[in-house]
C-alpha cells in the first residue's frame, strides 16, 4: 500500500453501499478523484447482505 499523497480536489461520496460504490466508480473512471466515506468499517452496505437478486437470481456479491 502506497503512502497517502496530498489529497487532490474531487468529489465526496457519502455512503459505501451499492449506490455509493457505483457513483464512486463512475466518477473515478472518468478521471475524477473520489473520496468515498462510509460510517461502518467496510464497504458493501445492504447488497452484500442479500443472497440472490431478482429477477435474474444473480448472486449479490
Amino acid at each position, binding site marked *: 500500500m502506497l503512502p497517502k499523497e496530498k489529497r487532490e480536489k474531487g*468529489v465526496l461520496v457519502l455512503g*459505501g453501499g451499492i449506490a455509493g460504490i457505483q457513483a464512486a466508480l463512475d466518477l473515478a473512471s*472518468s478521471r475524477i478523484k473520489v473520496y468515498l*466515506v462510509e460510517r461502518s468499517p467496510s464497504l458493501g452496505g445492504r447488497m452484500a447482505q442479500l443472497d440472490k*437478486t431478482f*429477477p435474474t437470481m444473480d448472486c449479490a456479491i
Partner: protein
Amino acid sequence: MDAGRHPNIEVLTNSELTGLNGRAGNFRAQVRKHPRYVKEDRCTGCGQCVEDCPVVVPNEFEVGMGGRKAIYTPFAQAVPNTYIIDKDHCLNEEFLVCSNCATNCDRDAIFFDDKGEDVEIEVGAVILATGFEVYDTSAISSYGYGLYDNVLTNMELERVLNASGPTQGHIVRPSDHKPPKKIAFIQCVGSRGEGGEAGCEYCSRFCCMNAIKDCMLFKQHEPDIEELVVYYIDMRAAGKGFEEFYQRSFDMPEIKYVRGRPSKITEDPETMDLIVQVENGETGEIYHHRVDMAILSAGAVAPKSNEKLAEVLGIELDGNGFFSLDTKYGSPLHTSKEGVFVCGCAAGVNDISDSVAMASGAAAEAEGYAAKLRVEEEPVEIKELDMSGPPRIGVFLCHCGINIAGVLDVEGLKDSVANLPGVAYVENNMFLCADEGQRMMQEKIIEHNLNRVVAAACTPRTHEPIFQDSCEQIGLNPYLFEMVNVRDQCSWVHTNHPETATDKAKDLIRMGVAKARHLQPLYRSKINITQSVLVIGGGVAGMRAALDLDAQGFKVYLIEKQGRLGGMLNHLTKVYPANLSAVDLARTMVEKMKSSRVEVMTSTELNSISGFIGNFDVSTTNGDFKVGAIILATGAETYKPVDEFGYGEYDNVITNIELEGILHEAKDKIEIRGGVPETVVFIQCVGSRDPEKNAGCSRYCCPTTIKQAVRLRENGVNVVVLHRDMRTVGAKSEEHYRHARALGVKFVRYTPERLPKVIGNGKKANNVEILELALNRLLEIPTDYIVLATGMVPNQTSNSHLHEILKIPQGADGFFMERHAKLGPVETTTEGVFLAGCVSGPRDIADSIAQGSAAAAKVACFIAKDKVTLDPTTCTVDQTLCRACGQCVEICDYLAPSLTMISPGVMAAQINQALCKGCGTCASWCPTGAISSLHFTDEQINSMIDALFEEQKV
C-alpha cells in the same frame, strides 16, 4: 468490489462527515476517521488475531444471528479487509490487559491507542448515498417479533438463505432447528401505513419482489417444503422482468398468494408453531393459519443519521427522513443545496437497478461541477527486463501466517518445487502480499534474472493484480506471472488432512509451474477515442443525457426523428410525483438544449453506424460524423388496444394517453369528446401483464391513472378504477394513491380470469360489469366514459432497425437488453453503446431522466480519456492456420471476430481486440487451433493437465 483498488478512489471507512462549507464547485468537507485500532497499511487480513480473542458478540452483519469477536471484519471478503477492534467490547483497558490479538499478530498491526484522525477535503460536489435502514419490526407488537423465536424479518431470512450465512444456507427454524415445512410471509410490515408510530406511509417497493424471490429460493433449498403463503395487499411486481418473475413463481404449487394482511400472530407454546390470523380478501373467510415460521417483510426507513447529516449539509429532509429533492434544477437527483446530489435509497426507497442508475446519474451531474478537476494520468516509463531465453521460473510460497503454513508442509513443498523443469529459484515467505514480501519478490526476480514468476498463496481473484503490479514495477511483464491457489482452495478447506492437502498443493504448484513455462509476455494496447457522443432520441432521457454531457464539455450530437424535441412529454399534461406541468418541464429542458452547445438535429433518421468503442462512424439523413460513444434513448410506444373493452367500437372508450391529451387541452372544465363526464371508469393493465400481448408490467400506468383520477375527481367527476393490483411504487405515488382514495376515487379489483365486461349499444358504452370479489357479487357500473390504462410496448420498427445497425440483443419482450439487470442498467453488451429511458423497458418520466444522467455518466467514463487501454488477454487468430470456417463469427456475442479477404480469393478470420472480452469460447470452437485464447492457450492448459499426471510417472 473494485472500488477498493481504484487509484482515483480513496476509501475512508469507519468515518463520517462532520462539516461542509463553501459552495458548489468549491466545498471544503471535514471528515472524522474514527479509530480502528488496527493499522491499515500493516494488516494483511490474515485473521490470526481473531483466534485467541476471548470476546464473542452478536454479528451485526448476520443481523444478530451468528457471532463475531471483538476484533473482526464485518464479513468475508470485506473491503478493506483490514480488521477492526470494537472498543466497546474489547477487554484491552488499563485495568484488564488482554492483548491476545496483538501477541498473535505477526505484523504488529494492532495499535490500541489509535486516536483516529480528522481530515479536510476539497470537493466540487457531494453525492449522498446513505441508503436505508430496515424498519424495526418489534414496533408492531401484534406480530410478536422478538417475542416468538420463529418470527424472522426478511433481512434475517436473506442471511439464513445465504450460502455464506450463519447456517450455510440450510434453513432451520430458530426454536428447534428443524427445517420448516409451512412458512408465511407477511408483506408491508412497516410500509403502507402499517401499525403505530414508526409505520410509514410509503411503499417500500422491493419487499414484494423480495418475498417472491425468497419463496423461490426456499423451494430450491428445501424441495419438500409444504407451503409458502404470501399475505399481501397488492403484489407490486413493477419493474423490468419483475412481472414475468412473479408469473414464474405460479409454477410452484407450494407458493400461494393470499390477499389479506394478518391482524396478529400468536405462538403455540407447545410446538412453538405460529398461528397467523387473517381474512382472505377474496373469499372473505377468516383463517387461523398454523405455520412453522413467519417472515415479516420489513420495509425500509431512512437512517437516523440522515438528520445529523442534513444539519451538517444544511439541506432539508422530506417527511419520511429521506433527503428531499428540489425540482428547480430539473433533475430527480438534486437536493435543495446546489452541488449536493442524492441517489439510491437516500432519496426514498428504490430497488437495486434504479439505485444503480440514480448513482451513475448523480455521478454525471456531480461531474458537471467537477469536470475541471480531471486528474491527468502521467504515464510511468519502466525499462523492461530481458525476458528472453529459456524459462527461469521463480516460485514464491506464501505462509500467510498460519493460514497456509499451519496446514501445509511448506518446507516439503519447497523441496518438491526445487527440481521441477525450468525452476531457477524458490523461496518461502511469511506474508508475500505485504510490502516486505513484495519487495523481496522484486529483488529476487532481478537478482536471479527470473523471467517467469509463480506465487503459491491465496486466490488470484483478489491478489493476482497486486503481484502483477509488483512485477510490472520492475519491468517484468505482468503476464509472465502465474498464481497458484493453495489457501482458499487448499489449506482452508482441507485443514484436517494436512498430508493430502500438501500433496494437492504440490500438484497445483507443479501445474502452475508447467503453465508458467508456456507463459508469453502480453502488452496492453491503447486505441484512440473520439471524445464526442451521439444521442439517438430527443425525449427526456435523451435530452437529460445530452445536457449532462454538454455540461462536462463534451461534444454531443442529438438526433430526433420527429420535428421537435420532447418526445412523450409533448403528449402529457402533468408529471407526477411533483405534479409539474409537462409543458413547463419540456420547455425548460428544450430551452436548456438551445442554450447548450449540443448539436441538435430534428427530423433526422439514422442510416448506419460502423466501428467500435471509441470510434463509431455515424451516418444520418443529416450528414455523417464520428463519435466515441452512443446513447439509445428512442423511447417506447404505448400499447394500441385492439377491440379490447369495446375500444374502437364505442366512441366513449378511450386510452389513458388520449385522456392525457384531453386533460392537457382542457381549460376550466373538462370535456371528453364533446361531453362533460359524470362518471369515468378506468380499466388497468390493458395490454400489460398478459402473456399474449406484453407479459411485463408497464409500471407507469398505475401512478398515471391515479394522477388522472385525482384531476377528474377534483372536477367533481365520479371515478372508479378497475385494477388487478395497484402498483404505485414510484416516489410519492403511494401517497398520491391514498390522496385519491381520500378524494373518493373508488377502486375495484378484478382478476384476469374474470375480465370486466363493457356493455353498450350502437357507438356508446353504458355499463361496465365486474365481479366484486370481496362481496362476490356482480356489479354493474353505469358510466359515460371508459379509460383504458394502456401499457408500454417497444417501438418495434425503430428497435429492429437499431438492432440491425448495432446488434444489441433484444429481450423476449422486444425491449433492448441491458448488460446486467441489476448492476448495468444503462450499459449494453456492446462497449461504448448505452441505453436510457424506455428503450430498455417501461419507465416513468423521473426514472427516465435519472437513466439519461446515468447513461451520461457511463459515457463520460469512456470519453473522459482520449485513449482506452485494452486488456491483452483476448483471443487472436493465426491467419496461416485459419480455414475461415466462420464458426468463431457465429459463436461470439460481442461481434469481435469477422471474416476478411487476406489475399486474393483467400479469406481468414480476424478478431477485433477492442471488442473481444477474452472468454475464449471461439478458441474452443476453432477446428484448426488458429485461435488462441491468450493467457489460457491450449498449450498452457494442456501443460497443466500433463503436469498433474506426471507425478504418476516413475
